[in-house]
């Protein structure tokens, strides 16, 4: 079955995808909805409460030109800090997050599975800078397997 649709004045012929493709797309859409809903819940959290809670954006990389975007979404239930990195289809949930308030040092640990099924641990060691500021920063190092670089992220306002 096919249909002709007008898109911006152009004739576009579309064909109904096979059922397997349809299921994949529906799953993708549902996943997108769930992830966006979860991230929205997290984003609505702290500004002045626990200093790690909220959304952080930044980069890591071995030098000034080779950078990788990083987004952290963190929450605190009163006992433990939890969260994920890069929410979305490639989200990585942290196994463990530890904060030492006397120095504001933080360690994030995750074990994401690669396409081949092999796990490559991620460790971020950072320090919260300007902790009283609502636009505080996390500055430190990012290590994934044999790759290592500096890391910096700022708390979203």
């Amino acid at each position: 079955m096919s249909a002709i649709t007008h898109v911006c004045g152009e004739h576009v012929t579309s064909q109904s995808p096979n059922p397997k493709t349809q299921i994949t797309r529906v799953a993708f859409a549902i996943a997108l909805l769930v992830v966006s809903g979860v991230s929205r819940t997290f984003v609505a959290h702290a500004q002045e409460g626990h200093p790690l809670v909220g959304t952080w954006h930044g980069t890591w990389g071995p030098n000034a030109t080779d950078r990788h975007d990083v987004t952290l979404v963190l929450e605190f239930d009163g006992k433990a800090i939890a969260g994920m990195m890069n929410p979305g289809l490639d989200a990585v949930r942290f196994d463990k997050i530890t904060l030492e308030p006397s120095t504001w040092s933080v360690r994030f640990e995750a074990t994401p599975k690669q396409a081949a099924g092999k796990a490559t641990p991620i460790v971020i060691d950072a320090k919260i800078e300007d902790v009283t500021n609502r636009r505080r920063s996390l500055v430190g190092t990012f290590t994934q397997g044999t790759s290592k670089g500096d890391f910096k992220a700022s708390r979203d306002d």
Partner: protein
Amino acid sequence: MTRAWVTAFGAIALFWSLLPAPTIAQDTPGPAGRGVGTPGPGRGRGARGPSKPTPRWADGHVNLGAPAGGSGFWGGGGSIVGKRGSSLPTNPEVGEVPFQPWAKALYEARLKVGDKDDPHARCLPPGGPRQFQTPNGFEFIEQPERKRITIIFGGGPRSWRFIYLDGRPLPKLDDLDLIPTYFGYSTGRWEGDTLVVDSTGYNEKFWFHRGGLPHTDALHLTERFSRPDYDTLKYEVTVDDPKAYTKPWTGGFTVPWTYTNWDGSPGGEIHEYLCQDNERDYSRLR
């Protein structure tokens, strides 16, 4: 499902995720520090004589405002930590506050840097006990026909807060319809001559106490207001926030009745003072 459906579904999801959440701060830096809300000279009520008795309404319950024909308002209060000034002698000292480790470290860091990062210095509303610590005073307005009390504040962004006395329950913190606010949601009741108010539903965009005692969205305050004599408001609050403190704790202070305007001139009215969020030109003025 057609491709158009899937595309629309994805677009809606993406749009939803990009929408600003209702509690995201809209503030930008403005005039900071003690310049905001600094009291004028000569405020107060002049020479103190013996206080008049507690005013009451016709039905006998305590009037927390000015009685008919009177004027005045409540001035600024003290601290719920420590015993100096108008603070209650039963208050805990800082070392006795049952902080979680992160909250203690954050409070100490805030004390060290002063008011520079205080949201109230950027004109954001002062929730919790902070409402009663701001200069320019506050006033209770009872509306028995609506079964509520409104507290209006002359300081900061000149805001107000409702306390419902109609027996409604407090919202549950896990209610998806709950939008956390600066002043939270308050329900009250009279226990003898004391107005007891429970509040939850606070956002985390403000410091609930001068100096920056930390709190989280789990904050539950139980406030007790009483007026032992005409000139004195006694304020006591129990802070219950299991994400920031290891157990509930209580502190308070007294607040003096102010017979004059804030600048000491006759009148006894809260004056017009506006602290506006997003004010950007102050630092450029000469």
